[in-house]
């Protein structure tokens, strides 16, 4: 089947098997290996990307379901050469160790902050509760998201310097 998907503002048209998972479409067809595959069962969230602005677990979405829709992945977090505050926050607060869950965590965090710019610790924990990190014990992920909450997204701050 032919699908046309806009990924990180670029339109891609590919011939795919109907059963191809979105995560494999992104990784194997488009070479966007930032999103990871971790469990098959929608439990770990290493594969979280946005589909039309909403986080989905791309291991349980078919590529054909993304036809005509917009996907945003970790590779699309950086805007205008500037890191998203979420990316900066994860670096500042040691929000990652092995880095495997990080892209999915950051996509959920950006989605949360877009809707709730000043989330509590409990709200952050609930937002990432469908995702697993095996390294950090979640503490520094929560701190990273809190750090990002205190720093505006690049679209809003292109004229001002985001300081670490």
């Amino acid at each position, binding site marked *: 089947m032919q699908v046309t998907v806009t990924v990180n503002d670029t339109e891609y048209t590919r011939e795919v*098997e109907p*059963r*191809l998972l979105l995560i*494999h479409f992104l*990784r*194997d067809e488009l*070479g*966007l*290996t*930032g*999103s*990871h*595959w*971790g*469990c*098959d*069962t929608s*439990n*770990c969230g*290493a594969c979280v990307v946005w589909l039309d602005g909403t986080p989905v677990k791309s291991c349980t979405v078919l590529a054909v379901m993304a036809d005509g829709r917009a996907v945003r*992945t*970790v*590779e699309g*977090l*950086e805007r205008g050469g500037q*890191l998203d505050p979420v*990316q*900066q926050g*994860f*670096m*500042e607060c*040691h929000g*990652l*160790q*092995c*880095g*495997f*869950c*990080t*892209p999915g965590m*950051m996509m959920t965090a950006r989605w949360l902050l877009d809707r709730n710019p000043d989330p509590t*610790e409990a709200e*952050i*924990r*609930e937002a*990432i*509760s*469908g*995702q*697993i*990190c*095996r*390294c*950090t*014990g*979640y*503490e*520094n*992920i*929560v701190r990273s998201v809190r750090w990002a909450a205190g720093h505006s997204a690049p679209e809003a701050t292109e004229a001002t310097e985001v300081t670490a």
Partner: protein
Amino acid sequence: MTATEQHGAPAAFGPMRRKEDARFVRGRGSYVDDIVLPGMLHGAVLRSPHAHARITSIDTAAAEAHPKVKAVITGQTLAGLNLAWMPTLSNDTQAVLATDKVRFQGQEVAFVVAEDRYSARDALELIEVDYEALPAVVDARRALDADAPVIRDDVDGRTDNHIFDWETGAAARTEEVFRDAEVTVAEDILYPRVHPAPLETCGAVADFDKVTGKLTVWETTQAPHAHRTLYAIVAGLPEHKIRVISPDIGGGFGGKVGIYPGYVCAVVGSIVTGKPVKWVEDRSENLMSTAFARDFHMRGEVAASRDGRIRAVRVSVLADHGAFNGTAQPTKYPAGFFGVFTGSYDLEAADCKVTGVYTNKAPGGVAYACSFRITEAVYLVERMVDVLAYRLGMDPAELRMRNLLRPDQFPYSSQTGWVYDSGDYQRQLALAMELAGYQELRAEQRERRERGELMGIGVSFFTEAVGAGPRKHMDILGLGMADGADLQMHPTGKAVLRISVQTQGQGHETTFAQIVANELGIPADDVEVVHGDTDSTPFGLGTYGSRSTPVSGAATAVVARKVRERARIVASAMLEVSPDDLEWDGARWFVRGDPDQGKTIPEIAFAAHSSLELPDGVEGHLDAQTVYNPPSLTYPSGAYICVVEVDPGTGGVKLRRLVAVDDCGVRINPMIVEGQVHGGLADGVGMALMQVIAFDSDGNCLGGSFMDYLLPTAMECPSWELGETVTPSPHHPIGAKGVGESATVGSPPAVVNAVIDALRPYGVRHADMPLTPAQIWRTIQGRPFRTDLAIT
């Protein structure tokens, strides 16, 4: 960045943002499954649905006829290459692909190589295997029964499932103390089978170049050099023609130490097809077939005086090693470092017997941040101390405080022969109690118990022994546990450090640069750390058992000091003084008595590459190499306090607080240390409350997906509360001790002790992990169940 200054140079130790994060936050890490080579094929493994069955036939014709299949490999194919079996890290053998029988559910039976990963999976469905099912040995406690089926009948003359007996301590002396003791307690304690479940599963990309004869394998491995040597030994390939690359690794926790059949199959697949072959297992394959951890069935006994003096500890252990003895541990230690079961206490005697058995379960045995079975040892002794406290009616913190080793007893030789290097245990426990508000918590508990509420406070204190070797005592398959480091100084003063250990998230690219920076007075940003590629790093045994900082960290400091000494000679030529007249101030060699006359490492590095005339016998350049053979292990310690609430209606546990005071000696990067402690605490909570790989009576794995094998999320974890004491290791060049596994070792007993303490109104003295709502409910009813078997 740290703001403190030391000897006029930026202090290199302190919290520093990680160098590796720049690629990870952009999605530009390079994990095994991210690697794509031209013409690359994809492999998939057919696995056994049975725990124990004889293979009567395998028909691969339909799979081979699949238009996208390039090769189908079976045990028979491998037998022709003498590769059907491979040695394990414990001098046993393991089937790469089964030829005679399958011995656990999920065992590798055939390997398909196809043009894409979906086709490879499709073709697995086309392979027909006829099995004759055999009774399975599921319960380790029945493995030595006279009528138990013999699992390893591949070995001539084997008539039972016994692997080894191992003993440490002094049985007769211990028996004397027990006979004489005022109080003795005993308890059966299970540390059930768990799986480390790194978020990235295992995988490999093998690329055999027929023209050059060179094999390159990208692997999810924590020990690339050991793997290279093993491939040379097993496959008969010349070692200089093998390159093992461990790229970015998505967590290891001990599960990526050994060689798995899938890696070997990918290599064979590449040799057979002449193309690169990628194999990446799925989550079920990971949980069902790669290295499990624990599975120790223990009986602990403690002898004590009535006033709470712990006199002796005796332990007998039945160790379930699965179908192949594949534990990754130093050869002379079949039960790992379980010998530290004497804990952090000054005992009169100790004795331990361990028996290892085969069962129809996945092989492995030492994995999951256990520091070679120290996790099990600490859980045993810290549970037993609480059992004793219960018996004596003493506060568990007070009982520990009374028995902990005192600072003046170090170095301390334990009753089982381990020499603890340093510690300040009472101060550490006192700090944890202060941070927790221990007395206030006990007061709150009394009030709440009067109201019928279940609140528990758990204490644990642990000492680890980490950083294997020395190589005289510690080797894996004859390879001594010592690690190399090479330091190259460029003319402009920038450095490249090459190390043998490999990071799976520990941040070596940052901390090891900080060690060099500290020794040479250059910025850590000027030090590039190369690791994970056997073609560009010195030999060493790899990262596991918390050994990177104790061994390779030491190697790094030593090689940097070698560079510094070479620089001293060059500086003496530059300054036209004797090397003996130079002093090091942390950033420069300067002339004693004339501090204005001095040279920094970058200045000296350029001179060392210049036309400067050097003293006779000095070769020029500053590069140096070393191999560090640790004189002893390092002994980090921890005092942990956990607070829980238990719902008597549901058996559900709410983890309210977890306080962890760790002492890992000098901290190179406290931010990274704390991060590792956080992760270990979450792991411990998972093991105590949620995680178990159990089996039904047919040997079916009941923890084969994340739907069944529950891992803690952000909702189950509280905000961790950390503290620290610093007791440097006296024999480590920078006073550091390993810490990567400390919290995984220390937190399960703290959490379990807290839950059991909460259940005290019901007279509960012990229940086995994981303390799920079902297990707690049944325990309250007086009917706790075997968590390693299907609930009946």
